[in-house]
């Protein structure tokens, strides 16, 4: 974990409200593990105090990139910042995905919208290639397909309006694939909570291991404010664990969904 004030290398619109931000972070980039995040202080924000967490998309040399959606006060201001402007980053943070071992399980990745970005490094560093299932509402919500294909992965896209790929939910496409009962597979997922719950459900139905990257509202990002907690099963019940520290990636069998909210 390092705190660094860094310069924006580029910050460009991808599709619709999605942007790709690249920053030069020589101290952080070499440390990044798949599924980790950076906590960004958007310096022009004067009256919104907290940092914003972003999953790390790609790492290249001394730069890293994130793929974000302009959805609120923080990301709107961020989306207008030109290259050369400064941001303050703390990272890499969190407990990420377990990278498959050579000859181990075949990874099946499941992404909802820009959750796809959090899975890229895992695909890149996995010795086995697998399938990426990506879903979104519309065509513009399906991001970085080409990057995954360039890694030699198969990408199966679904959209709710049928404007791209198969029409329907990403979990339906996943379910169809799981029905084929191929041996030794493991699920890795990142996306909205309802999707993660459905993936966890499928994992348990098909008796497969699954790692889920949970998306919780976050405060400090380093484990002190206890904002981003999720209920995690323990030997004698459950307790709140921190998405920023013990997570964001959890074994789906450990998550006590019935205690959440």
């Amino acid at each position, binding site marked *: *974990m*390092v*705190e660094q004030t860094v310069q924006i290398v580029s910050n460009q619109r991808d599709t619709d409200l999605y942007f790709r931000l690249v920053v030069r972070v020589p101290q952080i980039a070499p440390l990044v593990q798949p599924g980790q995040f950076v906590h960004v*202080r958007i310096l022009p924000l004067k*009256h*919104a*105090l*907290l*940092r914003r967490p972003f999953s790390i998309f790609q790492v290249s040399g001394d730069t890293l990139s994130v793929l974000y959606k302009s959805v609120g006060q923080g990301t709107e201001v961020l989306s207008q910042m030109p290259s050369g402007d400064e941001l*303050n980053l*703390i990272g890499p943070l969190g407990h990420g995905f377990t990278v498959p071992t050579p000859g181990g399980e075949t990874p099946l990745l499941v992404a909802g919208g820009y959750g796809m970005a959090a899975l890229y490094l895992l695909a890149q560093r996995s010795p086995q290639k697998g399938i990426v299932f990506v879903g979104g509402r519309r065509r513009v919500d399906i991001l970085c397909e080409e990057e995954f294909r360039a890694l030699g992965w198969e990408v199966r896209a679904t959209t709710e309006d049928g404007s791209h790929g198969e029409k329907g939910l990403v979990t339906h496409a996943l379910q169809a694939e799981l029905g084929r009962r191929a041996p030794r597979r493991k699920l890795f997922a990142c996306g909205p909570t309802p999707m993660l719950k459905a993936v966890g459900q499928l994992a348990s139905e098909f008796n497969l291991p699954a790692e889920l990257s949970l998306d*919780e*509202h976050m*405060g*400090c990002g*380093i*484990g*002190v*404010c*206890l*904002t981003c*907690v*999720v209920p995690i099963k323990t030997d004698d019940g459950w*307790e*709140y664990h921190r998405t920023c520290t013990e997570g964001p990636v959890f074994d789906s069998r450990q998550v006590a969904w019935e205690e*959440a*909210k």
Partner: protein
Amino acid sequence: MNLSVKINSLTLQNPVTVASGTFGYGAEYAPLIDLNQLGAVVVKGIRLQPVRGNRTPRTFEVTSGLINAIGLQGPGVDGFIRKYWPFLKELKVPTIINIWGTTVEEYAEVARRFDALGGVGALELNVSCPNIKEGGAQFGTDVKLLSQVVAACRKATQLPLITKLSPNVVSIAPYAQAAEAAGSDALSIMNSFPAMAIDIETRRPRLANVTGGLTGPCIKPIAIKLVWEAAKAVKIPIIGMGGIQNAADAIEFLLAGATAVAVGTANFYEPQTALQVIAGLRQFMQQQRLLDVRDLIGQCR
């Protein structure tokens, strides 16, 4: 140049501490800042038993502030001693342990346990958390109960006792005086201010707990006034806190009458804040040709 101040028998190398609940158990910040530069480390509130805490959402960001209702999630006395004390006891700077209970007896028992531990810098009594159903604020908004809690802890420990007062009272003077009379060695002023936010789309409260405690820069003027009033009412030192983001904020608290200060919510977004406050304080003293930080305390005219 002297930056050190005293809280009864406890000497702080400089007047800059951190606010309980914003700094975890210290170790979380060790990768980012040198903890040994601080005046003291103040840990999150601990009661006898582990506490699960409130449901989520637990915090909501507002203009220049943060509303929280964490519910004092924590490991309990035994969990704290097992998981966090081995790290904290090796620090060169004192650890102040924030304690609470649901009864007067529990406060005293927790105080006794930490007294017996050895090596603790001071105890801060949390009589003012707005986010838990029993305990917390009820002790801080009733002068009689406050006196009982402080007196019971005074009997239970020789450690310096700091009472953290609630801002949610008509006048802070009687509470400050009651804590002093019951044997408190210092006061922390203030805890968070009761607050609420509503989502206008869903028409639901933003927090699962409905209400929470407001912290951050937006509460600073309220805290300055309370420190100013309390400093006139008591002789014991005051640790001032509420929205400190930089040295200028901290100096304002000293001028209002605080002997030391605590950086709170700013730790969440800028972990370097406390160290920046120390550096800025030093620079200010140089500019003003001040040799002793104590020459700032209570000097608002």
